[in-house]
């Protein structure tokens, strides 16, 4: 097992810079998820860590060894690809044992290690099948087995579950989590599914346009997003954003919206000098106003109701803005009903306007 450290890592393809000065510390045994929208450079970063691509500048350290010039083999990493990339002409057993065979292990050793891995992954029945005779989930497990069998220092996953259907994805997610709890190998897991990232990872790294936006535990990212991008990326349905201007009214920090309405918030510092801000409110923090609520109460009209079972997602138009509200009380409402909603002051996020 090993730690992974990146220092000022940059990557350009020709004149296009896709990774900008990344700095990153991944501890031994940690499970880190790398999330971000399509094209933000996740795969590129993973391939550089794997040693399949070279960084344009910057350093990669694994276990305090400078590995920039190391091949994937020398780094002793294993990688699971989105396409699984199983060798079509080899059986499951040969696929999993291929890297052991390259290492020159004896036939008996290979056999015992392969069967160890296939036992963990429940592939024992399928050893003689070719990849074309397997289902998607089974192929995925073979790909995992191929990575697992060599006891690598680090696992790299590039969207390993994105080709599976929703149900299987949840099941495999659990298996990966269980596997990691068992073997405790440092893992870097690329996904653009935030639920996958949140459920699996000890720490999440959010990337956008080749830059790391924020790193932290799932709860940290949810509670204290560093900027509008992270705030909008984490959480589902995603956060409501309103543009406005800060002002102080009788000692209370407020945001003045273009409509003239104001939202109180708690000043935690880090406010821009020009006062232009974006207010963020999570849909699940919006609530129906009660008689006691005095501040941060708004009147709105129900635009749309999306039932999802345990909760309803309501689109409410307030002063020409549409806010999403998650209603867990499943209140009976009709389109165009007028309702009063309340924003708890401690749940209001305020970000500088810059982006």
């Amino acid at each position, binding site marked *: 097992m090993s730690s992974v450290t990146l220092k000022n890592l940059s990557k350009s393809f020709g004149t296009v810079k896709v990774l900008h000065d990344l700095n990153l510390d991944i501890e031994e045994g940690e499970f880190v998820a790398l999330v971000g929208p399509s094209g933000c450079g996740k795969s590129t970063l993973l*391939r550089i860590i*794997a040693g*399949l691509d070279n960084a344009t500048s910057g350093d990669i350290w694994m276990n305090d060894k400078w590995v920039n010039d190391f*091949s*994937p*083999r020398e780094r002793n*990493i*294993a*990688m699971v*690809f*989105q*396409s699984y*990339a*199983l*060798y*079509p*002409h080899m059986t499951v057993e040969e696929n999993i044992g*291929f*890297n052991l065979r*390259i*290492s020159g292990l004896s036939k008996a050793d290979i056999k015992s290690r392969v069967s160890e891995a296939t036992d963990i992954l429940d592939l024992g029945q399928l050893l003689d099948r*070719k*990849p*074309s005779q*397997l289902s998607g989930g089974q*192929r995925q497990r073979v790909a995992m087995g*191929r990575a697992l069998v060599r006891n690598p220092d680090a696992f790299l996953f590039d969207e390993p579950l994105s080709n599976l259907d929703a149900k299987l994805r949840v099941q495999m997610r659990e298996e990966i989590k269980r596997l990691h709890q068992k073997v405790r190998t440092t893992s870097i897991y690329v996904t653009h599914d935030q639920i996958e990232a949140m459920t699996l990872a000890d720490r999440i790294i959010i990337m956008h346009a080749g830059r790391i936006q924020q790193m932290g535990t799932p709860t940290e990212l949810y509670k204290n997003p560093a900027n509008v991008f992270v705030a909008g990326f984490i959480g589902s349905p995603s956060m409501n954003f309103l543009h406005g201007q800060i002002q102080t009214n009788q000692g209370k920090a407020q945001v003045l919206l273009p409509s003239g309405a104001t939202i109180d918030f708690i000043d935690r510092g880090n406010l821009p000098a020009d006062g232009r801000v974006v207010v963020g409110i999570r849909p699940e923090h919006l609530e129906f106003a009660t008689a006691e609520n005095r501040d941060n109460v708004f009147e709105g009209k129900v635009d749309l109701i999306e039932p999802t079972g345990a909760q309803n997602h309501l689109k409410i138009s307030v002063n020409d803005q549409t806010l999403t509200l998650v209603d867990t009380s499943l209140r009976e409402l009709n389109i165009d009903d007028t309702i009063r909603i309340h924003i708890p002051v401690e749940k209001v996020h305020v970000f500088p306007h810059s982006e």
Partner: protein
Amino acid sequence: MRHLSKIGLHAVMLIGVLITIFPFVWVALMGTHTRGDIYSSPPPFYVGNNLLQNYAELLDIMPFWTVLFNSLYISVMGTIAAVLFCSMCAFGFYAYNFKGKNLIFGIMIASMMVPPVLMLIPSFLTLKYLGILDTHFALWFPGAASAFGIFLIRQYMGNSITRDLLDAAKVDGASDFRIYWSIVLPLIKPALATLAIVIFIGLWNNFLAPLIILSSPDKFVLTLALRSVQSIANSPWGAIMLGTFLSMVPLLLAFMFFSRQMMDGLTAGAVKG
């Protein structure tokens, strides 16, 4: 009704087969007759009784088995070399990025547009300069790097081998040669078989190149030897037909072998993993 159309289809196919196979049968039958019988009218479309004499005459007018072996040697060596070199070269073009790759590939493709006949004299002069005229090496080796072969295999790789697969092998710790040998080669078998059969037939049937390159009769190949005895005023047609028929047999065997490989490969690739 469906039954009837099936019978019709089979009849058409049968006629096709008969037309295709007729010349072969004809040649085989002529190999058993004397020259006189062959020229009789109507031609004798049955098995004659002159086979052994024809065989003796064949051995008399040319060192038949030596010549057959020469042909076989050149075709087999050329085929192995071409399959090996073309697949390696195609792998290079497919799996690696280097400066000028597209330019080199383009030039190579362009070279396919030059008619082979135009290259006859330059290649003769080159071989002469190298001092390898009148050798078998000069016949099979230069064709080993075939632009057509490289192109064919390169294109096939594009469809059958994903970059992830090469990356996966790299992560598994395979060396470049190991990737080529253990991953790439097994997956491009159908293309290899196709190329092998094209090259084999080309070398086996080649007449022009042996004609200008070879001069010693004991180095002759079949095409050349069978042609050279026809200039004799009284061409011994029975013997020549027998020789011609015998010369077709290895080709037939080669085809059966490679087409089997082609089929195996094709069905294996059909349901990709």
